[in-house]
């Protein structure tokens, strides 16, 4: 009987060792992926985590497509789970922070975000942590002696969770244009009182009524991430836009069809389909003869 147990122990040992070696070999064949995690705060209730996943192939960085990335707040547990995304062709993905984050956010001095890539058949398990201190920007438009100035105040929470101003934070002052954000000054830094100011140009075109949206941005900052604050001010020059595209023409980009064409096409449709409806009606009479 002892011999049988000995035999069993040897076989089990061999199987276990083969399995461990197999697993190790499988791990060896996997590639290493790198994660880059960034934080965006577009408004207090609109925050994202962006991830970019790359790998090295033939001495080049190549985006990793179609891998699942899970996000956690604090630690990798179901309690801290924020959500997951699949990376796109650029190896990127964004996660809109869920309500559960906001519930926990107000009680934390800083947020520790963890992004993980696990259980992937091609890539080794890896993760990245990002610690963010929640910063908020207060934005004011000040008019003094006909001079227009944009004032921004940056605040964070101290150890008692009270909001305090922060000095030496780099700020971009921008305005929204149709396709991008236009800088209206050089990079500014907050002073001792956490305040930065930028003059607003006097010749900036606004919409029809002169409204422009001013944006103040902390850009990819450690430890604040990217934080934006917007304010719409009536400080632009009212601008009337070329409304050719609104007029009725064949080449108009909008649905402003020339009246004669509208009548012609609809007339043709009505006549043709009217005849067809008449024919169907006639055919249905066959049944009652």
């Amino acid at each position, binding site marked *: 009987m002892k011999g049988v147990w000995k035999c069993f122990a040897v076989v089990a040992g061999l199987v276990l060792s083969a399995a461990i070696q197999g697993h190790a070999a499988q791990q060896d064949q996997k590639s290493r992926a790198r994660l880059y995690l960034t934080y965006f705060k577009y408004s207090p209730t609109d925050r994202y985590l962006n991830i970019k996943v790359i790998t090295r192939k033939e001495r080049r960085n190549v985006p990793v497509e179609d891998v699942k990335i899970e996000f956690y707040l604090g630690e990798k547990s179901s309690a801290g789970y924020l959500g997951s995304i699949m990376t796109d062709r650029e190896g990127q993905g964004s996660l809109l922070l869920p309500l559960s984050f906001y519930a926990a956010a107000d009680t934390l001095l800083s947020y520790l975000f963890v992004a993980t890539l696990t259980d992937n058949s091609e890539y080794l398990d890896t993760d990245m942590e990002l610690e963010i201190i929640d910063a908020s920007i207060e934005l004011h438009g000040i008019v003094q002696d006909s001079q227009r100035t944009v004032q921004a105040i940056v605040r964070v929470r101290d150890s008692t969770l009270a909001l305090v101003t922060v000095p030496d934070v780099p700020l971009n002052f921008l305005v929204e244009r149709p396709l991008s954000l236009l800088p209206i000054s050089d990079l500014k830094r907050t002073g001792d009182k956490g305040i930065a100011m930028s003059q607003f140009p006097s010749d900036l075109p606004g919409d029809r009524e002169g409204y422009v949206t001013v944006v103040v941005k902390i850009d990819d900052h450690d430890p604040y991430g990217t934080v934006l604050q917007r304010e719409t001010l009536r400080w632009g020059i009212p601008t009337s836009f070329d409304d050719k595209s609104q007029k009725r*023409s*064949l*080449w*108009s980009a*909008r*649905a402003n*069809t*020339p009246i004669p*064409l*509208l009548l012609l*096409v*609809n007339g043709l*449709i009505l006549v*043709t*389909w009217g*005849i*067809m409806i008449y*024919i*169907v009606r*006639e*055919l*249905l*009479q*066959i*049944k*009652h*003869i």
Partner: protein
Amino acid sequence: MDLVDNPDSTREVGKSRQQIEQDLLRHVTKWTKNDKLWLLFLGVVILIGVFAYYRQLRYGLLVTAMRDYTSWGIYISNFVFFVAISLVGSLVSSILKLSNATWSTPLTRISEIIAIAAIICASIIIIVDMGRPDRFIYVIIFGRIQSPIIWDVIIIVTYLAISILLLYISLIPDLALCRDKLHDVPRWQKKLYEVFALNWKGEKRQYQIIHKTSSILCIMVIPVAFAIHTVTSWLFSTTWRPGWDSTNLGPYFVSGALMAGAAVIIIAMYFIRNSLRLKEYITELHFDHMGKLLVLLSAVYLYFNINEYLGPSFKMVGVEGEHITELFFGKYAYMYWLVQIFGLILPIVALIYKPLRAPFPIMVISFLVIIGAWVKRFLIVIPSLQHPYLPIQDVDESYLHYIPTWEEWAITFASFAGVLLIVTLIIKLVPVIPVWELTDNKE
């Protein structure tokens, strides 16, 4: 009434009513082993195409060879080809009918079935060409009536509806015949005949309605058929590319379509005649007449071809000149000249001789015409797109060439299989030759 009443058909067919009914209903009830193998083959081709389309949906249009320059590939060539052959319906069941060419009676239903199958697959292939087919509904909801694409959508739907009505009206008496004579068919098929036969009893008033409605449709289908291919040509001529900036494009497309349609009907006649044993109904005389018609239509198309290329090749201006050079002497020259010689000159020259209008030779020539017609659409679409008036600076090398991927070919072949499947299924459900028109339409 045992003998057929139609003097033309009695003379040609020389059979009693029962014999004609028996001959023309035979293929509806029987499913031979060959039929099943044929359906299986078509099914496999379609499934491969569906898999390729799944890949296209999953990975996007990146799986195709279409890029910023060649943004319309073989899908659009195929679309134009299907729209072209759908004109066969109006050619045979309307133009020939209105010109009192009674010999074409046995060919009307075949042509109408092909027209419907082609236009259905043309519509599908357009949706396949879309990167986001889920947004197709926006074309209807937010369509701009001044866009030729909307005109195309409207006209395709209208032509499909008219073609279905044309086929259905001529089918009603034959559906009633199937209802009354076919007893060995499944219950659903029997029910189908009962519902769609509209309680047909062969009353005089019922015939009057059929004749009146089909006459209206025969007239109406001609402008709609011309419009469908003219509007398709406008999709090109309103786009700013060399080779398409031509006022000749509408009639050029329509004449090419009628020619391709005639060739398709000849091929269909040949295979239907042989596989369904209908040699007494689709005779050598029909091939002879269709051969003469094909010569005429090819000559008209040749005329428009000369019009299309003479002006630009005489002037050789800028990008238009580059486009013409590429067609005449460049990388597309072998395709261009093969199409012109085998797809256009050959039918005109060869089919003048009566022996070559016999069923087999004319089928082979028509096959060449059809291949030429498909390649011709390729030549209309692709080389023009590769010569934009405003080229991209430092353009990616891949934009300058277009070699369709296997997914594009698989979907294209699946669309052909789709046409053949629709044609086969309709032929297995209803008589392929209008029985009532051969037996009692003189009432």
